[in-house]
């Protein structure tokens, strides 16, 4: 199972149009990514809630098509 970086990017942008994002395909295998995302939507929320919003945007792909994604969320105060 794999996912293209561009596809992943599009999902995140669609769900967080206001965010600044940076996605890296860590191993070049469409399977291991890191995502850094800065968004006003995260302001005042716990890390767990912030990460959950990203997982929700991925709509079940995490653990499925998307094998490994390391996430760093940042609020935008």
């Amino acid at each position, binding site marked *: 199972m794999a996912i293209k970086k561009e596809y992943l990017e599009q999902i995140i942008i669609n769900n967080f149009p206001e965010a600044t994002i940076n996605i890296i395909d860590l191993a070049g295998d469409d399977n291991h990514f890191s995502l850094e995302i800065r968004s006003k939507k995260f302001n005042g929320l716990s890390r*767990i809630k912030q990460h*959950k919003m990203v997982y929700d945007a991925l709509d079940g792909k995490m653990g499925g098509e998307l094998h490994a994604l390391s*996430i760093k969320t940042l609020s935008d105060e």
Partner: protein
Amino acid sequence: MDNKIEDIIKDKINEDDLHLFMKGTPLLPQCGFSSTVVQILNYIKVPFSSTNVLEDENIREGIKEFSDWPTIPQLYYKGEFIGGCDIIKEMFEAGELQEELKDIIKS
């Protein structure tokens, strides 16, 4: 979720102050993310118990539903989910994890 699985999960979480659901065991982690969390917990010298989700498919799926969190590892402190690998790493780097767990860190 099956009530029986939920009870098993609750028992495990309440077994010790700190409980880690992981792939593999602390001595032989079967996944890089699980390994990272074990290394951090060992580094800050905090005692914890663990469950190898690879040994039980019901727990592996059940824990994701229990916490509404799609990935493993998952760390629980005093019965509450405190984070997966990325969050634990971030908390550790910021010194927040050591602060949160100070009551049970061995001096």
